[in-house]
């Protein structure tokens, strides 16, 4: 296996996609400005040059058409990688996502196979306002038939995209746009990260922070800060949201007996509720305090930087919650 070297988060998308195209003749990429422009975030830079326009296809601005293209192509033997530029645009194609892609196999009594990978961008922090900053993973995690992953590091990006593309089911890869330039070690070779497996990214005994995507970084910053006050936080990066690694969550909670669930999505109705509910179902007797949740407040994402900063969960708010939870404050 070749050496690992540093790649950016977004560079890992391109490398993973190339790997998939090399490994699978039936894989192709489709989306708005993915080919000629290499993706507006640079996710597919170099792919047109290397694989030609049969394997990477620019589409019209037609999200429902794009997802339908993926569904039809997948059901008939191809392995599409479909790009939905911003997750917010799912509103334009939720029917093909929820009623076709997610349900076709079941409605057909198992006779169809839908190996589609959907790559999309979530999150705020770059002042793109209400329609380009959302974290809507709760919508798709509620839909039987779909899988959803949300990597936090370049390493996970590559491994999860490769796993998603090898999966015979629709898998959403929810990326984060404020993480694009984050760097990390990524092996050159092909590798998988199993869908459905969380990862302890920091061990600790006092409190568990359950989180995913960019908030893992905020949790790490929070843990560093908490360590200064002698609080030893364990951080669980879910990586997969559907299926969710409940066992890993519960194991950590049983150890620390305190838990804060953190996501960038709006708190009300976000995945945090599901996670909290599962934790108390499975580890009720281990809990020394209520499960705390950190999420965005109940408003659209505001434009103005001062408001957006006040809006998006961050290390500081995690520290606050943990401190409150442990009764240290």
């Amino acid at each position, binding site marked *: 296996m070749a050496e690992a070297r540093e790649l950016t988060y977004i560079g890992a998308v391109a490398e993973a996609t190339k790997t998939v195209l090399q490994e699978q003749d*039936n894989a*192709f990429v489709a989306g708005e400005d993915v080919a000629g422009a290499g993706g507006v975030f640079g996710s597919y830079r170099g792919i047109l040059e290397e694989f030609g326009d*049969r394997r990477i*296809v620019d*589409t*019209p601005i*037609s*999200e*429902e*058409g794009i*997802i*339908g*293209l*993926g*569904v*039809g*192509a*997948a*059901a*008939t*033997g*191809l392995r*599409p990688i479909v790009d939905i530029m911003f997750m917010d645009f799912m509103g334009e194609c939720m*029917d*093909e996502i929820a*009623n*076709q892609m997610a349900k*076709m*196999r*079941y*409605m*057909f*009594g*198992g*006779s*169809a*196979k*839908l*190996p589609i990978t959907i790559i999309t961008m979530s999150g705020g922090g770059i002042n793109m306002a209400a329609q380009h900053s959302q974290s809507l993973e709760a919508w798709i995690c509620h839909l*039987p*038939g779909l*899988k959803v992953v949300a990597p936090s590091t370049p390493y996970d990006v590559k491994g999860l995209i490769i796993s998603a593309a090898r999966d*015979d*089911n629709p898998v959403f890869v929810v990326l984060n746009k404020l993480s694009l330039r984050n760097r990390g070690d990524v092996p050159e070779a092909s590798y998988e990260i199993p869908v459905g497996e969380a990862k302890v990214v920091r061990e600790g005994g006092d409190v568990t922070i359950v989180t995913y995507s960019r908030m893992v970084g905020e949790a790490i910053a929070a843990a560093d800060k908490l360590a200064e006050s002698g609080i030893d936080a364990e951080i669980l990066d879910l990586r997969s949201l559907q299926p969710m690694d409940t066992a890993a969550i519960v194991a950590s909670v049983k150890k620390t007996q305190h838990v804060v669930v953190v996501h960038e999505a709006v708190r009300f109705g976000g995945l945090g509720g599901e996670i909290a509910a599962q934790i108390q179902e499975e580890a009720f007797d281990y809990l020394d305090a209520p499960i705390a949740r950190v999420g965005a407040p109940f408003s659209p994402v505001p434009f103005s930087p001062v408001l957006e900063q006040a809006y998006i969960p961050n290390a500081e708010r995690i520290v606050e919650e943990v401190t409150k939870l442990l009764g240290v404050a």
Partner: protein
Amino acid sequence: MDLNNETLLDIHLRMVRIRTFETEAGKMAEAGKIPGALHLYVGQEAVAGGIMAHLSNDDWITSTHRGHGHLIAKGGEFGKMFAELYGRATGYCKGKGGSMHISNMQLGMLGANGIVGAGPPIAVGAAFSIKYRNAPNVAVTFFGDGASNEGSFHEAANMAALYKLPVLFVCENNGYGEYTAQANHQAIVDVADRAAGYGMPGVVVDGMDAIAVYEATAAAIERAKEGLGPSLLECKTYRFFDHVGVRGMGLSYRTDDELAEWQKRDPILIFEVRLAELGVLSEAQAKEIHEKVLADVKEGIEFAEASPMPNPDSLLEDVYA
């Protein structure tokens, strides 16, 4: 035109199979034996018959809520179809889909669909797949006049024309979307007029005339296989039963006279007259075919009724591969 006797009889058989299946399914529904909603295809048989006579199992179709006719014409077996409508384990979808989702991948049938307008984008995907594999096939997407107002149709049509995909957009214009007449859902008379806006040919076809449908389809398929891209065929037709079930909700959104006018042009009736004129099928032979098909349909019903219900334990199977 390769419309030899064999083809004519083939189209005829497909149409009779649809008519008989649907008529009996309607009766079973009225007898309370079929759960859920049943959208019957009676009256529109020339469309499915004339088109499907061109297709093999390697050609893909997407269908609609009114999908039995398409599946039958594509080769669907009565037994497995009735079993599905009855919600039995032996149905095409193991009872999980029912009428609105009946499908068969082996026959190239990507499902009936409960969502109006959901099919065209999927057919475009199937056509993309055909082109990608350089296969000598086509995809056909069936949709109604009402469905032509969904954005999904628009996006699919544009993409198909852009990529010059081998796909036929077949609008079965039966004059109504549920209980709303075409004049109350769009300000045009011919849905085919939309084709020019995508850069594809649009043709109006007499959807009660199986031969006309067959021929228009031949031209569109030829074009598709030459790499020239999609076509829009608008088949003017009529449904003889109500929107859902046989008598529906009993609304008076269309007149008895209108129905009677269209019934004079019953696609099977006029086709049989034509076949008789051509000396291809006598009245007696036609009768024999109808009887044979009816017997097959009854056998299908028996199969369904004798079939077991799905095991409740299968509930969570088939969600994921």
